[in-house]
């Protein structure tokens, strides 16, 4: 039995002509113990996917089976309880409560489990130790550095001992050094048996993942198992494609994605449909090629 199973999950917003598709019949199965990196340009549905898996959102169509139980259309209360017991969230903007100390922030999810204060604080303290911040127990978030703040947020995500950790761009607001710290921590948590799903724009960070999922236009475009410590094949392409964007392209709004090289050696796992956007991208590429020749 897989831990997470998404079956033809779609998420639509709006009505009639104004309908926009955030997720387009996504099928995704994640086994327990995986560490999945989700990549893709902004607006490709990464966050919606995260919200879906994290039970913050429910699909318009399709089924979500978590631990063998169908959870696509359960009540908000049951949804909240599953979030409380099985899922830990880490956000790009940390989302700590400014008027609570690090300890109180970490202990917060336990409040909703109904634990008494002493027990809450005890568990929270252990978690802070685990992320190496036991000497910052009574600091307020504004007194901590970005990396430390995110570590407190990780401790908060861990405090319920959840099976799944969902991190939506955990390093998005951090410098390289702090990013490394945070990712090392997530890597350790992964090793201790948690399933981690994280969103990132940085291909380097796929080194911490056992699987890379690439999303575009609300669908999974590419899905690959990787070895820990290695950058995913597809991610590497994106990584090396980065310098190809010129100032000219930026002005024209041409994204890195459109400049992926023609000589794809790796076959994508999902079928690619021809869309006007992609044709345009190809045209752009051939034009660039001609320019380069002349």
């Amino acid at each position: 039995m897989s831990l997470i199973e998404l079956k033809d999950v779609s998420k639509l917003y709006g009505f009639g002509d104004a309908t926009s598709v955030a997720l387009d019949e996504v099928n995704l199965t994640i086994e327990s113990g995986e560490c999945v990196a989700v990549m893709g340009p902004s607006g490709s549905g990464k966050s919606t996917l995260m919200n879906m898996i994290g039970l913050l959102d429910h699909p318009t169509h399709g089924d979500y089976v978590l631990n063998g139980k169908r959870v696509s259309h359960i009540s908000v209360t049951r949804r909240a309880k599953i979030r409380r017991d099985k899922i830990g969230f880490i956000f790009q903007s940390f989302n700590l409560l400014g008027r609570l100390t690090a300890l109180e922030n970490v202990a917060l999810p336990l409040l909703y489990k109904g634990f008494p204060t002493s027990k809450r604080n005890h568990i929270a303290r252990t978690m802070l130790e685990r992320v190496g911040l036991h000497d910052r127990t009574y600091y307020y978030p504004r007194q901590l550095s970005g990396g430390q703040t995110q570590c407190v947020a990780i401790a908060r995500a861990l405090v319920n001992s959840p099976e799944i950790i969902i991190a939506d761009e955990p390093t998005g607001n951090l410098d390289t050094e702090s990013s490394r710290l945070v990712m090392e921590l997530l890597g350790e948590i992964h090793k201790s048996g948690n399933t981690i799903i994280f969103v990132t724009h940085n291909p380097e960070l796929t080194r911490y993942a056992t699987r890379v999922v690439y999303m575009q236009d609300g669908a999974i475009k590419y899905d690959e198992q990787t070895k820990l410590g290695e950058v995913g094949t597809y991610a590497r392409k994106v990584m090396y494609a980065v310098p190809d964007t010129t100032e000219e392209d930026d002005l024209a709004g041409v994204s890195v994605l459109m400049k992926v090289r023609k000589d794809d050696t790796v076959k994508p796992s999902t079928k690619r449909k021809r869309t006007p956007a992609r044709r345009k991208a190809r045209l752009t590429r051939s034009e660039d090629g001609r320019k380069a020749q002349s």
Partner: protein
Amino acid sequence: MSSLRKGYLHLAMQSIRTSRTRSFMTMLGIVISVASVIVVVAIGQGVRQQIGNQAARYGQDVLLVRPNQAGNELTGSGLPGGTGALLNASDLSVTRSTPGVSVAVPLSAVTGQVRGDYTIPNPLIIATTPQLTDILHQSIDYGGFFTASDTEQTAVLGADIANRLFSDNAPLGQKFTLRGQRFVVAGVFKQFTAAPFSLEANYNQAVFIPYDAAQNLLGTAPQINEMFVKIKPGNNPNEVARALQHAITDAHGGTNDIVVLPPGAKGSNSDQTLHLLTLMTVGVAIIALLLGGVGIMNMMLVSVAERIHEIGLRKAIGATDRQIMRQFVTEAFAISFVGSFIGLLVSFAAIGLLRLYTSLQPVIVWEVAALAPLIAIAAGVFFGAIPAMKAARMDPIEALRHE
């Protein structure tokens, strides 16, 4: 569950502490509403008791005989019938001879200037008989009431006029002139808290002279504005009243120009006043409590709007709608609870000060003192629940996006 609630109270206190000014202002609203309810009711009760005491003190065995027309304040006498009173000395003797009557006391308004140390141009001068004290039960501060055996012309003063008439603090034995005749002050009434039987006359401003002396002044027996009739024990007041009505109507040749008020009817005027007073008090109380509740709602709405992001986060990490709601309701509860308690203390202090420094004699109504805070808390929780519901129903994703 108790641990849960402890957690929420902690959260609520934290939230109150962080937005201190706002919480304080809201609390102030509750404090004022609770305190004003208790104080207003206490003042109302004080007035009730004073008026009620009067009614009780002047007894269930006193009938009132009046001309069939109300007193006119413009004529200055302040007594029923004004200067054109319709009762006379013969009515007095008719009354006295009616079976069941033990004492009949006439009250006559006499006009004239009173000259003591100071001159009072047109005071309320009441000519009456010594038995008045039997009916009023009003104690006399200094001296005594005039008696039938007084050799000199004596008078008794109301407390306020005694101060106005003489520069000296002890008016006893002082003399004043009325229509060229000298009167000696035999006594001064203690302050009347309310006019017995009638709301029109202020007995504290009245000069009481013997009926016989008035006869001397005027040359004839003065017209009578009002009679207090005390009935003999064992007689039914209503029957005596009916008999009296008959007797005087007969004496007036069948003209029904007087009324005899049995004991129950005497207070009718003040009863209505009391009723209105109670209604007013209740109205003020309801408005005050409502305002306190609306204040809470307002504050909670702001609090919710300010913390949309926080609510989103709390929901994301597993707070159920009910738990979010409970957090905000607990906050409303904490504010209204503390506010009510302070309001209670403030009201006690205010009532104490009023008793000390004003002539109002507020009486704490303990039922109200217990209920007002409870109702304020209930109103706070009720009005706090509306924004709390709003908070609880928020979509976590949108709330999280909100900064």
